[in-house]
């Protein structure tokens, strides 16, 4: 599980549906959520988490994507399997993991040290704990 420490920047609410935005390493992250715990307010520090299988990768990308979370990361390690590959991604002081198909890894010629964009849908990002 990939984890990031972030600070709540804003909360938009309609009934019990919320879009929470966070700041971390000068990036803005967004999360969809149903009811929030009361202690989650502007300025609250939280540990965010996302399944490695829910993180996609973009390289040399031009155009528009609906992903609310587009993080500039660098690849620090690639474990290439027969079908799947696990990438370690450095995001400031945090390390994220991404599981993608080995076909994609080869097609994109992803290598250690490369700068890429980690893509996470706001519905795949969640708060693991309030710090």
């Amino acid at each position, binding site marked *: *599980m990939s984890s990031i420490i972030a600070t709540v920047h804003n909360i938009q609410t309609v009934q019990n549906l919320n879009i929470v935005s966070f700041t971390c390493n000068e990036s803005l992250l967004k*999360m*969809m*959520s*149903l*009811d*929030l*715990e009361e202690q*989650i307010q502007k300025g609250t520090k939280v*540990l965010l*988490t996302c*399944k*490695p*299988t829910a993180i996609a990768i973009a390289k040399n990308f031009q155009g528009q994507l609906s992903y609310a979370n587009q993080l500039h990361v660098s690849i620090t390690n690639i*474990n*290439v*399997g*027969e*079908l*799947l*590959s*696990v990438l370690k991604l450095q995001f400031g002081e945090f390390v994220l*993991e991404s*599981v993608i198909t080995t076909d994609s890894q080869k097609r994109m010629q992803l290598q250690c040290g490369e700068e890429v964009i980690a893509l996470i849908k706001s*519905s*795949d990002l*969640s*708060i*693991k*704990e*309030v710090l």
Partner: protein
Amino acid sequence: MIEINVTKTLHGAEGVMPLHVKLNIQEGEFVALSGQSGSGKTTLLRILAGLEEAMGSIKVHKQVWLDAQYSLSVQKREIGFVFQDYALFENMTVEENLLFVTKDKPLAQHLLQITELDALKKRTPNSLSGGQKQRVSICRALMKRPKILLLDEPLSALDPAMRTKLQNELLSLHKEFGTTTIMVSHDPSEIYCLASRVIILQNGEVKNDGTPKEVLLKTQGSQKFSFEGELLDIKKVDVIYVAIVAIGQQLVEIVVSSQEAKNLKIGENVRLSTKAFAPAMTQI
């Protein structure tokens, strides 16, 4: 308003345990009482009914039922009590069981009609099914038009279809008679369907008190879809791992990365969680 502030020393399987419960219950509320066995739920119902002595006070709509000097007798407490094991008079017919409480024939007839027992009123309990017997004991509990209806796991011995049917009947009777209902239950779906408030007892004290959603919705951080299970196995497949987890009567598989797998031990209890946005739902 029902004001309860009672204390009693219980002698349970794990030694002496103090029961101390302080609660205010609004008139007309449907309260579910939950908690592990031995936590004091049944004892609390019995204290309310006057079947067990306790220290402290009970006030029902400003009338004193219990205080330091006084304890209102069981017969005078306006309570209906339904037990898990029906507790019917086997030598009396269904109708006689009801009329034994009060000789109010129109009310007995009305209750038997609502609960579809009218055709069975001349039968004795031993010729009835579990669901029918429990209907009779619910009807009997309402014959006194009680202020408080106490239900001690009334539906736990019944099959799921009968449970759902009786849940609906209980709810409509609760509304029609305007009783305050306190029901011991362990079934989250039953609690969610019937109760407006759930109280969890633990070791003789109130551990949690709120709406069923507040109390029963298991969350992990902001993740709303959460289950506890036992990790049975974890297998490496290519560069990822597949964990097998037993949840209730089912097995599920979860894909984890090597980093996640590192901290997991087979045999451990684990919590599986995901966002409310992730699961797909289809009819069975």
